[in-house]
């Protein structure tokens, strides 16, 4: 009896202990942190961003969200959320308190399926009123101010359909509008509403298959083939220093661009960079391609881009180095169904809108991400020596982080520790940088050991000369013996 009681007590104790500990420990995530290294492997990495909470509007005076398409974070860190389902824009603060609703009143300001919003420094709210084919402008006090209708220009062509979906307003008051299906680039609209031309157009690259098909196909076949169109922009973002970032659909390289004032891509330059996942899921025996639908840029130039295909967010530094991957498609918190927009407040919190789930998810940075961001900010500014400490700490936490090895190598190179730099670049699998470090190391080595090297070289030369002389003497001796009498070599020649 006593034994039974003891047993039941211990069972109870175990049960109590099991349920006392929460099933999911703090920091557990619905997605697995990983990163790409220079070997195109995907080693595990510590998560940079974790799910915090969601906002669905249910408990607010504005009611439930319906089809959130775009989030805009104003300079005072308040959020403007465009709902295409509710045909309105709601303005909320950091604590999810509704500050105002735009475009739901009857009248000129009534919105119809809006998809994008931009708020200027003086508080004017520009809404891409997609189904009404206009840009509606509201004043701070939510009164309808004016509108930009369909731009009229011979440049646009006869068949042009205006469907403004995203926009920004630059410091001059020019509008840069993404119109769905417009292949010419961003539409520049002057403050007075006239069309000022396309900006930063994508181009159709060279393609072998297409060229060969064109050569072979008959005229009728050519007519049946779909004409190749340049890829269209999906979104546009303006950072605090006025750079315009774009995301493009339907291509596998350079999906994210940073355009200068004259429309030149300064993020990728002339090179072709891969953004998003390298290993993509496949459907019907075809690999899917990334669909970047939005990007947001932080104070230090960190680019966080959203890929709708995999539902993942990719964070890059100012130079385009991958820092973090998080999110995904799924049911759990932290995963999405149809993510549409990403935005970032000044404290680094990331907001993602989900059109199907009708909510805004919030992600916070982990201590590891804070460390990487600190190191990265110093690194992209070229302050390699200052970044050494944080990068070493990054490696202590995560030895799979190749960028840290590379950055440390850069710092060592600048400190003229070429041997150490070579080791670091080797760890980062950076052959070009390794070769540069080796060049410097070799130069210094030859300078320091000039005497020894010359001695070795001269003695090697002498030894080779002596060896050749010895071999020659032997051959001459053999030749002489052959002349004296028929040897084996001559016999062989007789067969021929």
């Amino acid at each position: 009896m006593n034994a039974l009681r003891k047993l039941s007590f211990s069972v109870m104790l175990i049960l109590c202990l099991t349920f006392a500990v929460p099933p999911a420990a703090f920091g557990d995530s619905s997605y697995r942190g990983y990163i790409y290294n220079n070997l195109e492997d995907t080693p595990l990495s510590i998560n940079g961003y974790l799910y915090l909470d969601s906002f669905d509007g249910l408990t607010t005076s504005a009611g439930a969200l319906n089809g959130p398409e775009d989030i805009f974070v104003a300079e005072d860190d308040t959020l403007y959320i465009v709902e295409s389902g509710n045909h309105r824009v709601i303005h909320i603060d950091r604590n999810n308190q509704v500050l105002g609703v735009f475009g739901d009143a009857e009248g000129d300001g009534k919105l119809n399926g809006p998809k994008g919003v931009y708020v200027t420094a003086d508080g004017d709210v520009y809404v891409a009123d997609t189904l009404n084919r206009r840009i509606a402008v509201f004043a701070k006090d939510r009164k309808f101010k004016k509108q930009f209708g369909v731009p009229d220009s011979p440049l646009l062509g006869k068949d042009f359909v205006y469907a403004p979906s995203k926009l920004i307003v630059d410091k001059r008051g020019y509008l840069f509008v993404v119109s769905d299906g417009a292949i010419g680039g961003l539409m520049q609209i002057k403050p007075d509403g006239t069309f000022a031309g396309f900006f930063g157009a994508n181009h159709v690259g060279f393609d072998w298959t297409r060229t060969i098909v064109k050569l072979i196909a008959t005229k009728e076949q050519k007519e049946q083939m779909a004409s190749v169109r340049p890829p269209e922009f999906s979104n546009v973002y303006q950072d605090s220093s006025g750079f315009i970032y774009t995301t493009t659909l339907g291509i596998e390289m350079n999906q994210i661009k940073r355009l200068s004032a004259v429309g030149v891509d300064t993020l990728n330059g002339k090179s072709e960079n891969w953004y998003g996942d390298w290993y993509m899921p496949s459907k019907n025996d075809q690999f899917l391609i990334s669909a970047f639908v939005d990007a947001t840029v932080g104070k230090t130039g960190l680019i966080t881009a959203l890929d709708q295909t995999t539902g993942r967010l990719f964070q890059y530094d100012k130079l385009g180095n991958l820092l973090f991957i998080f999110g995904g498609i799924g049911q759990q918190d932290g995963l999405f169904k149809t993510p549409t927009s990403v935005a970032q407040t000044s404290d680094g919190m990331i907001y993602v809108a989900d059109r199907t789930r009708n909510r805004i998810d919030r992600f916070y940075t982990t201590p590891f991400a804070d460390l990487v961001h600190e190191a990265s900010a110093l690194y992209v500014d070229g302050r390699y020596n200052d970044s050494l400490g944080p990068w070493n700490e990054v490696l202590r936490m995560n030895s799979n982080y190749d960028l840290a090895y590379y950055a440390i190598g850069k710092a060592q190179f600048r400190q003229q520790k070429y041997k150490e730099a070579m080791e670091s670049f080797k760890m980062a699998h950076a052959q070009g940088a390794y070769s540069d470090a080796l060049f410097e190391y070799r130069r210094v080595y030859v300078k320091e050991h000039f005497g020894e090297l010359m001695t070795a070289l001269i003695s090697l030369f002498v030894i080779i000369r002596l060896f050749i002389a010895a071999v020659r003497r032997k051959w001459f001796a053999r030749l002489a013996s052959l002349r004296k009498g028929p040897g084996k070599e001559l016999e062989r020649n007789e067969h021929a």
Partner: protein
Amino acid sequence: MNMLRSIRGSLLHPLDFFYDIQFDNRARLRNAVIIVAIAIFSKTLVSLLTGFSFNDKGAYQISVFNEALWIVLPWLTWSVSNWAVGAIVDGEGKFKHILISSAYVFIPYILFNIPFSIISNVLTHKELPFIFLLDYGSTAWMLFILLVTVKVLHDFELGKTIWVTLLSLFGVLLIWFVCIMIFGLVNQSVQFLVDLYKEISYRS
């Protein structure tokens, strides 16, 4: 010693050497196998020794089997293809002689690449032209020996030699293509039979 002499002969007097090899039972399969084995060994060694500037393969990524495949397969398929093409266009070469002679093609590769892979540890990308020169040099020498074997063994003149070499290279590609295709077809038919068996066993 016999081995070393034959290597020297193939490098310095290839015309005489490959002519002589056809007579008196001088062609030794043993020598050919040894050369191919050394070629495999040196290819593996090259992968291991080459400086990081030119090769970022870790030791764990190198498989001797894989390296061997890239030596043995070209050697065997070339021999078969060259023998077959030669037989059609009135070449005189015997399969055994072709097989043994074409193994000697690997000798410049062995001689050039091991020293180069050691030197490459102190070379940087700034010396790329020098590296290309060495690389093209060894390839050209190998090609020269290959042409000589075709010319001497089949007793062709120069134009026909080049034509037959090109045809044989095409034949090599054809053999590989057919092998891959047969593999694919066999794979599919086996899969079909397995599926058929499964279907029947589920229904009964």
